[in-house]
């Protein structure tokens, strides 16, 4: 898959979530047909020559708007200072299970980071006061889990 470097995506995380620039400077961003990938490895490697299948982890999906991934938010999300929704542990389980939660968004609108006191759970979206979990199904806990 061809990857090309484009660091404008760094600003998205700074502007949208208030993640400090020096944290985001650890990453370089690469575009491919399947989204935008964040890579914290050496800056002097020519990835096109290496014929990379995957570079770092996917940070954003690109359609009409940019949509941050749960996987990358779980890496940098604890540095966020805005557009964060804080849940208690009961609500957290609901969010992990893909259940909408009312009354937790306040005035927030658009993509948010879902957190609890200790964990970054991932990506959500606030629409008219309701939090709609965007956490992928593969991260849903099974009933038998603890």
């Amino acid at each position, binding site marked *: 898959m061809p990857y090309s470097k484009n660091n404008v995506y760094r600003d998205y995380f700074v502007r949208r979530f208030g993640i400090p620039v020096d944290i985001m400077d650890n990453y370089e961003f690469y575009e491919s047909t399947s989204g935008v990938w964040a890579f914290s*490895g050496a800056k002097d490697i020519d*990835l096109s020559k290496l014929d990379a*299948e995957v570079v770092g982890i996917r940070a954003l999906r690109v359609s009409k708007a940019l949509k941050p991934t749960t996987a990358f938010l779980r890496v940098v999300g604890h540095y966020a200072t805005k557009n964060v929704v804080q849940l208690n542990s009961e609500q957290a389980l609901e969010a992990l299970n893909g259940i909408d939660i009312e009354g937790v968004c306040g005035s927030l609108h658009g993509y948010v980071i879902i957190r609890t006191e200790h964990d970054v759970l991932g990506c959500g979206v606030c629409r008219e006061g309701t939090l709609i979990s965007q956490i992928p199904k593969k991260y849903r806990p099974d009933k038998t889990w603890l």
Partner: protein
Amino acid sequence: MKLEEYRDIIPNFEAFLEAMQKPQPYWIRVNTLKISEEKLISRLRAKGFRFDKFEGMNAYRIVSMPVKHPGATIEHSMGYYYVQDLASMIPAYVLNPRPGDKVLDMAAAPGSKTTLMAQLMENRGTIVANDTRPNRLRALGSNIERLGITNTVLTKGDARTKKFVIYFDKILLDAPCSGEGVFRKNPKDKMPGLREHLYLSNLQKALLKNAWRHLKERGTLVYSTCTFNPLENEEVVSYAVDKLNMEILKVEFDVPHCKGVARWRDREYEHVHEYVMRIYPHLLDTGGMFIALLKK
């Protein structure tokens, strides 16, 4: 039984056979890129897990657990830990990748050692992690994503011939092997015969040769397998020393282990056997592992 042929090379053979019949305990390692050891272990303890820590290492043997599989927790799905046999962690520690290094992991899937190395490198430097099999590469990709590893590039190719474009400070060749050391885990697997050992031995030599091509001068390489047969171990390391002119260094790591095999059938490995490390199931209640450290 096939393992009988190792009676003369495996010390305390009866204890070895006994350990091979018993199920293998689970070990976990905390993903310190995401959470501290103390925090994770106390969270899992509160859920009813009991652990034995291996002193001096981020490795915890599960003594008992309230779930069927050690990965059946939210903490696992959050990428806070990885289920990995203690013996399988050691090759990564012996290679000792540092934050600025460029590291090649030639046969990397599903990434137990890749992800541990990324942890030792604090997500800095670069790992190129390669495998041939698409489904195993996908498993590697999902482990990398779950653990939040961002310093790794995945490539797909036959590592005997692939050109990795750059030269590496360190290379891990955790080679495809007959896997006799993990039969405890997968007791239904078929024991390999001589033909398979010979075939794998040649494959391993070819992989090692391409690893050598991609290593910087004075760079180091760890060769490891999870099998007992000397044709896949000392034989391959001898090839590196005799044919590729690599220097063999002593594997120093503080775990109970045995040295290598000096002689096997008509083959003689006197010049390497003191340097390499063999870990057997009866030493630490783990899987089996062979580890050698080579320098260009």
